[in-house]
């Protein structure tokens, strides 16, 4: 049943993306940035999915520390890995957009730097997990580290409000707006990316369960 739901969500995400990419391609040029602006239709939803993943990882880590239930640890690692993939896409697409619009691939402003720190922190979380053998110790240290890593997420989100950055101000928070049909496609892309994230997390979660089964089979084999 769970697999069927995951497949259906995956198909829904792909259908939305195919329809939306086709529709976005036919949208007119943006007045100042031209067609390069269309990268934003993917860059921002990827970041939205990454931030959703970071929030889920935080909740799962807190839940593990409270309950000591390894299901939450599995969810935290699954969602962090998927979130890291989305963060990578967000950084790369942003850099390509910056090269065309600003003329530079990278600048050390507050938004970009905090986003890179976020990527390094969650990358470090996954490396930390590989470094600790004992499951309970690994899950506890990782949960604490994940909560610490999350401290950077509000800095990434609000850096453009708190400091003057080269990164543009958000369209929607700053009283700006898209034309209605642009908003429509932008929001559908957000839905598709979050759905894609849910599907990837479910698959990754199943792998964590398989890994736990392997650990238990190994223990049985040692006992025999």
């Amino acid at each position, binding site marked *: 049943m769970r697999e069927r739901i995951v497949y259906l969500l995956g198909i829904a995400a792909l259908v939305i993306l195919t329809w939306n990419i086709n529709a976005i391609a036919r949208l007119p040029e943006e007045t100042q940035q*031209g*067609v*390069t602006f*269309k*990268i934003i239709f*993917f*860059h921002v939803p*990827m970041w939205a999915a990454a931030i959703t993943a970071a929030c889920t990882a935080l909740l799962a880590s807190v839940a593990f520390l409270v309950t000591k239930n390894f299901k939450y640890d599995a969810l935290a690692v699954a969602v962090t890995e*998927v979130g890291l*993939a989305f963060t*990578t*896409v967000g950084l*790369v*697409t942003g850099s*390509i*957009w910056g*090269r*065309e619009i600003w003329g530079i691939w990278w600048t050390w402003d507050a938004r970009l730097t905090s986003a890179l720190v976020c990527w390094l922190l969650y990358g470090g979380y996954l490396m930390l997990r590989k470094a600790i053998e004992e499951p309970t110790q690994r899950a506890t240290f990782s949960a604490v580290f994940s909560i610490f890593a999350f401290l950077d997420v509000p800095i990434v989100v609000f850096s453009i409000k708190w400091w003057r950055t080269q990164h543009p101000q958000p369209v929607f928070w700053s009283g700006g707006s898209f034309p209605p049909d642009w908003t429509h496609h932008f929001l559908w892309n957000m839905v598709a990316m979050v759905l*894609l994230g849910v599907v*990837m997390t479910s*698959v*990754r979660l*199943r*792998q964590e369960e*398989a*890994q736990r*089964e*392997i650990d238990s*089979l*190994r223990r*049985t*084999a040692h006992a*025999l």
Partner: protein
Amino acid sequence: MFLTNPILAQLVTEEARLQHQYEFLSYGLTAAWVILAVYVLMMVSRERKLKREIASLRAMLEERK
């Protein structure tokens, strides 16, 4: 010769600008999907490895019993 005509020159510049912008748009979109595709392939290969490992461990346990 064509570029001495201001309208033609403007059209050529406009086309070059559009081409340049589409180039960057395609880089961005390609990078996005390639990164996600690589990650999905990594997950698929990990899934296969895990299934093989479970099967071999079960077979080993069966033998020992």
